[in-house]
């Protein structure tokens, strides 16, 4: 595979007027969502999914990718200026970013966050380009036993990494798997858990479910907790960082970019974990760790670079293995499947314009974000002053239209409202919804690969020991579960509750 010619093809695809429009719309909406606390990228993408049905698969992917990495950019603005993270991944930026703003250095903080994100986006794209074709070729040699083992490993990693105890996450995973079996069994054609409801024959649709869990539930939480925020009134000047700022930020940006990309590949809240890890590393490597928290630019540059790079990393498992590692990737998978395409290694070969077009658009999108975020910073700050009574009804309107227009069915609207209330209850009872969504998406693949394995081996599990990939995955899974149990008894659950929340 020729990297240069593929990249050129991708750039030419991304530079068509239609795709440029979708790229701009994606990064613009992404920044907007990143700035606004409350609604995250999965909810926003779910709302806009019907729009992608009218676009080509490349344009749809470009739009969704743009919203995702655009939100990472936008999240830093509110963290620095108002001490309110637009996204969970920007929580750590509040610590030093807001202190910089209080000292009158909001401009350089915003500037380094934007430039750092741009550099991280570019570095992670280079890594993405180099890694994906190799992994996609490797993925072609993977069979059902390996898929089954990798799906199990992915779900366990997710359960171990996210906030709350592993047991809570496992409950959500099993519930997600069970709901994914609602509808007709693809092998035998028999109905499962439908209770005679005709609309459930093809299963529960992912889009209204995500809209409910991430859109409507956020709306309900907002109604309960919503508060208006006071804006920083000082004028923002000197957005360009000084030479000293650049010297201080250079290595944090490089380290954050590489770290973020590789953490992003793992299932789980990659953007959030990478930002926290990057902050910890920078503090450890600094000659003045005691000054962290008082407005150190390294505390902004590292995490902001890491969370942007992680956004690119999440594309790797989807395009190489066809396994989404983040709710946004699950939605992207859903959008591609509407167009009759299944993400995975074959997509990289048969429809390479989708992957390379998206990569090309990411380059262009990163430049667009720089232009959008620096000169228009005042506009994004003003967005925060949009009153809740205008914003919340509009979110509801988009969810309503989005859910209905998917299948022209009021049943889907009902599904969305049901999962909205369920998502709100999960929030209140401290259950993360991301493992549920991931398990729901992976459920059919989980079942298919296990059934194929059992049929081909006549019920023997020896194949899992004979395949090196499956064996490695299952040993890692066992180590992770053992570690969780040991940690639970050692710390009596203290560490469990302090883990990082999902960045949906």
């Amino acid at each position, binding site marked *: 595979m020729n990297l240069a010619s593929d990249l050129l093809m991708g750039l030419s695809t991304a530079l068509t007027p239609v795709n440029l429009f979708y790229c701009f719309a994606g990064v613009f909406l992404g920044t907007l969502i990143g700035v606004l606390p409350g609604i995250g990228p999965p909810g926003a993408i779910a709302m806009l999914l*019907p729009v992608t049905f009218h676009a080509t698969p490349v344009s749809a992917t470009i739009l969704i990718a743009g919203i995702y990495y655009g939100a990472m950019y936008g999240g830093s603005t509110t963290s620095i200026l108002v001490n309110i993270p637009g996204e969970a991944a920007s929580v750590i930026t509040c610590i030093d970013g807001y202190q910089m703003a209080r000292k009158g250095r909001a401009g350089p903080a915003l500037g380094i966050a934007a430039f750092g994100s741009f550099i991280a986006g570019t570095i992670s794209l280079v890594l993405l380009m180099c890694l994906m074709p190799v992994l996609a070729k490797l993925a072609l040699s993977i069979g059902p036993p390996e898929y089954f083992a990798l799906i199990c490993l992915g779900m366990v990693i997710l359960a171990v990494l996210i906030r709350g105890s592993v*047991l*809570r996450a*496992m*409950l959500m995973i*099993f*519930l997600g*798997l*069970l709901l994914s*079996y609602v509808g007709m*069994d693809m*092998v*035998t054609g*028999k109905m*499962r*858990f439908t209770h005679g409801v005709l609309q459930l024959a093809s299963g529960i649709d992912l889009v209204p479910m995500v809209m409910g869990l991430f859109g409507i539930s956020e709306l*309900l939480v*907002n*109604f*309960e907790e*919503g508060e208006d925020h006071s804006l920083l009134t000082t004028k923002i000047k000197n957005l360009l960082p000084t030479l000293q700022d650049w010297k201080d930020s250079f290595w944090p940006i490089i380290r954050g970019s590489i770290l973020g990309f590789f953490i992003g590949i793992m299932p789980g809240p990659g953007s959030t974990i990478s930002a926290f890890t990057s902050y910890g590393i920078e503090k450890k490597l600094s000659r003045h760790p005691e000054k962290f928290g008082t407005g150190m630019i390294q505390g902004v540059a590292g995490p902001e670079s890491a969370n942007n790079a992680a956004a690119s990393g999440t594309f790797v498992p989807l395009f190489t293995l066809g396994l989404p590692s983040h709710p946004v990737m699950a939605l992207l998978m859903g959008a591609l499947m509407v167009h009759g395409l299944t993400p995975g290694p074959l997509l990289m070969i048969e429809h390479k314009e989708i992957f390379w077009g998206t990569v090309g658009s990411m380059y262009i999108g990163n430049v667009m974000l720089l232009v959008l975020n620096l000169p228009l910073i005042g506009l994004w700050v003003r967005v925060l002053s949009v*009153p*809740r*009574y*205008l914003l*919340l*009804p*509009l979110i*509801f*309107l*988009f969810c*309503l*239209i989005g859910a*209905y*227009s998917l299948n*022209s069915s*009021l049943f889907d*609207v*009902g599904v969305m*409202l*049901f999962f*909205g*209330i369920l998502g*709100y*209850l999960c929030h*209140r*009872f*401290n*259950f993360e919804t991301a493992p549920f969504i991931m398990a729901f998406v992976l459920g059919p693949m989980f*079942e298919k690969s*296990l*059934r194929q394995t*059992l*049929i081909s081996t*006549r*019920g023997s599990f020896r194949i899992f020991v004979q395949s090196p990939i499956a064996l490695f995955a299952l040993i890692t899974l066992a180590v992770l579960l053992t570690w969780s149990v040991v940690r639970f008894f050692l710390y*009596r*659950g*203290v560490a469990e*509750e302090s883990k990082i929340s999902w960045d949906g």
Partner: protein
Amino acid sequence: VIVKRRNDFIAGAIFFGVAAYATLLSYEMDLGSIASPEAGFIPLVVAVLLLIASSAFIIATLRPLPKGLVEAETRRLTVLVPAVIFSAADLLLLYLLGMWLATVPALMVLYLKAGGKSVIRSALFAVVAVACAYALFVVAFQIEFPQGILLSRIL
């Protein structure tokens, strides 16, 4: 036996109930054998796993949380009942009046509940928002929306 974490106990009991029901339903399906699994085989395995996990979760609620941690905050489920009523009413209105007419009062309610003061402004906002959405989705994207059973009969 004293439950130390009431809210977690309730959550665990709900999971247990769902798991038990799913176990029964999948047990009644064709299970096949391990060498040739049928429609009910994998759902039964997952339902049993959920049953075990929820039992473990319920047992865990019998011991108190470690010092410094607080239980899931469920005392303030203030929007739960209004949300259920609103959802049911909205679905009924959508069925009777169709997407556009039903959405205007829904948006008005949300506008006022989210802190908007004036009823007239809420109506104005709802009508403008619905008109814009209509222009975008019906005129531009040519998506058809339901007219509603009542409206269809009148028209």
